[in-house]
């Protein structure tokens, strides 16, 4: 446990496209950056036993998730020459077609940005205590499990 102020990655509901655009715009003054890599996770309309997913409701063990994200961030910055990295994950309801994850890495050169983005996405899916409850059209739900 720590008394460091940890970066908050959680946003209520879907990540808006305008938020993503604004984030890109906000980096235009960082003129050492030569490449950005962006990953967007979108809620997919999976079909399970004849029922279609209408939305996912996300919950998290927030204190632990922020600690673990901090450790991932430190590892990624130690490994790749990045200018910056931003991670946003939805909490609460996100409908199919909406964005639930936004990972954004920036570096002077593209390879670091691309590789760091990919590694961050893979690690957070494995290591962050976040759960998605898939809500079906009509009624019913199922707890998602990452593959």
């Amino acid at each position: 446990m720590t008394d460091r102020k940890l970066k908050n990655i959680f946003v209520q509901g879907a990540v808006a496209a305008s938020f993503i655009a604004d984030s890109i715009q906000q980096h235009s003054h960082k003129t050492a950056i030569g490449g950005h890599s962006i990953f967007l996770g979108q809620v997919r309309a999976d079909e399970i036993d004849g029922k279609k997913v209408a939305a996912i409701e996300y919950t998290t063990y927030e204190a632990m998730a922020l600690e673990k994200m901090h450790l991932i961030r430190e590892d990624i910055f130690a490994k790749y020459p990045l200018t910056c990295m931003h991670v946003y994950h939805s909490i609460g309801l996100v409908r199919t077609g909406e964005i639930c994850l936004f990972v954004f890495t920036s570096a002077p050169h593209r390879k670091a940005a691309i590789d760091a983005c990919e590694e961050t996405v893979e690690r957070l899916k494995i290591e962050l205590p976040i759960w998605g409850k898939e809500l079906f059209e009509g009624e019913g739900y199922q707890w998602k499990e990452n593959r």
Partner: protein
Amino acid sequence: MQVTVLLFGSLTDIAGVNRLVLDNVPDTHTLIQQLNERYPGLQAAHCLLAVNYELVKDNTPLPENAEVALLPPYSGG
């Protein structure tokens, strides 16, 4: 000595609660035993245990006022 237990994901459906306070649990094995007795549905559940945000595997002594979390498989991202 008291510990707080947090349940997440599908475990909240099984137990019907997401937070408990337990007394007299010196270690994680005792805690699991007590939880399984109180909520038999948990016995079949597959989950990890975290003590004060750190995952633990083997029987682990619980400090006073520890926060223990029962974590089913993650599905974020």
